[in-house]
């Protein structure tokens, strides 16, 4: 790993994406999978801000990051509402039990 900030940030983003991906696969808890999604969205944020700020691309990267943050908040709200309904009907948040929802 070289010392320049762009490569550090790209590697950090890769680590975040990998951790989020692993989280989504390994965790059977629905909320754990949600946390994985948050990590993946944050990996995209790091790349947006890094390439926007470390070059002359201007503020567009930052604005894309703001939109991603707002969409992540909205996604977390809806997913938690669905999780609560699922918990009320199944008394568990094990994602594998959700196969009874199959249409």
């Amino acid at each position, binding site marked *: 790993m070289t010392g320049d900030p762009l*490569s550090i940030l790209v590697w950090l983003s890769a*680590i975040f994406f990998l951790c989020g991906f692993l989280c989504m696969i390994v965790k059977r808890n629905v909320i754990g999978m949600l946390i994985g999604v948050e990590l993946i969205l944050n990996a995209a944020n790091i790349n947006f801000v890094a390439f926007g700020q470390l070059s002359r691309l201007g503020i567009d990267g930052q604005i894309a990051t703001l939109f991603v943050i707002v969409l992540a908040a909205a996604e977390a709200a809806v997913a*938690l509402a669905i999780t609560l309904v699922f918990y009320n009907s199944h008394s568990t948040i094990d994602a594998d039990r959700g196969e009874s929802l199959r249409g």
Partner: protein
Amino acid sequence: MNDFLFVALAVIAALGAISVVLCRKVVHMAASLIVALSSVAGIFFSLNANFVGATQLMVYVGGTVILLIFGVMLTSMSAKAELKTTPIEAIAALASSVLLLLVFTFTVGSVSWSEHFKLLAGDAAVPKNLVEQGSSSFSSVALALVGVRTDQPNAHSYLLPFEIISIHLLVVLVAAGYLARPRGTQQEADSTAE
């Protein structure tokens, strides 16, 4: 000093993200997520992206993670029951993540980012110090969201996406509240209305 802070924040963020995966309990995962997201916010501050850093702290760390912790508390099963990963799932996850890691190593590692960094920086000399680079962007980001571009006057502004996303957020939050309503309340409300 600033570079040292930057690298330290990056390391803390990476460790937080890794400990999110390694923690068993959801509350510990949420705590690690707070560490990771806060250090990413610090990285944004050190990249001179103040608005995004503040938004990350307020919306992500202060909002989304708290929402997740509320979710954990509302759906707490018997406290001891942990959802274990079966060995087959663990092997599949390990295999796919190793494949993904190889992909990242070959893609991210094969690009010499410093050359592209100079290319992206164009004619402008590459600044030595992290604080010098990037525009001091708080007011220009805020103004671009309400339709005025101060940095590049001919570039398009973000007023319409801002409005769309604000209505989207409103609709989504109302829908989330409707979805998560207590069962039976709807019939009671209807019967009392009648």
